[in-house]
């Protein structure tokens, strides 16, 4: 595939991510923060998000498996996940977190378990999509092109 095609593919792919609600305006803000001094800023922050989210998802799983669920603790983890997903623009993950927090407040364990499944699912989707996007970006850079913003 030639450079122009790759660049077009990237633009189309990004557009679809926004249209399908995977990413929102905050992701654009993140990209605008990147500059020549920190050319890998977006990848770095998103990688941190992946690591941190995986940790939180594991903590949530453990917390919801307890005999007596500590909803405050569950809520604290969801609050973190909601914050990070919001900060990088991972809109669908953030939305599930909002519902998740409501179930925590109600101390509704079924609701929480369902939300955990949903948030795992949304996280896994956005992770795959962002990784694909980064791969495409890397292909463009390797072909000597620049990333269309």
């Amino acid at each position: 595939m030639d450079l122009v095609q790759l660049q077009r593919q990237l633009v189309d792919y990004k557009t679809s991510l926004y249209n399908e609600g995977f990413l929102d305006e905050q992701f654009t803000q993140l990209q605008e923060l990147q500059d020549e001094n920190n050319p890998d800023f977006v990848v770095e922050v998103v990688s941190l998000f992946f690591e941190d989210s995986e940790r939180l998802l594991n903590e949530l799983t453990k917390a919801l498996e307890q005999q007596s669920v500590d909803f405050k603790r569950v809520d604290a983890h969801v609050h973190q996940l909601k914050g990070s997903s919001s900060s990088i623009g991972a809109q669908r993950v953030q939305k599930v977190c909002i519902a998740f927090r409501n179930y925590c407040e109600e101390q509704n364990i079924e609701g929480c378990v369902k939300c955990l499944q949903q948030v795992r699912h949304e996280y896994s989707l956005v992770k795959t999509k962002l990784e694909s996007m980064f791969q495409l970006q890397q292909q463009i850079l390797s072909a000597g092109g620049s990333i269309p913003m």
Partner: protein
Amino acid sequence: MDGGCSGDMAAEFGDEPHVLAVDDNLIDRKLVEKLLKNSSCKVTTAENGLRALEYLGLASDKRNALDGTVSKVNLIITDYCMPGMTGYELLKKIKESSVLREVPVVIMSSENVPTRISQCLQEGAQMFMLKPLKQSDVKRLECYLMRCRS
């Protein structure tokens, strides 16, 4: 905004303004640091209120009031919801200090709670900002960093 606030803070200031950013969320710390660095600030981050107080020399086990009569930082920006000590509690401690009470404190939160906002402003916070922060939000801080009068 006051017409006296220009974009290049380093030039205005001589030295770069030094900001202490406090947030328990790793991603948010990285973000706020970049936003501030993009505005030519020197940034120190802390992951909770206690660490922030330690950095500022206000930790309860240190009673050396003369240790730095001039504050190391020009602005403190802190998250509200943090485990252990909230941003509000941190704000109060800063305002209780004779050395640090003049340092502008900005509170950030992902939640828009009017009572929370007025509580912070009443306690002396300069501003309350909604997360996630954008570059335009940091632009609003420039006046405090250059000590513009509005």
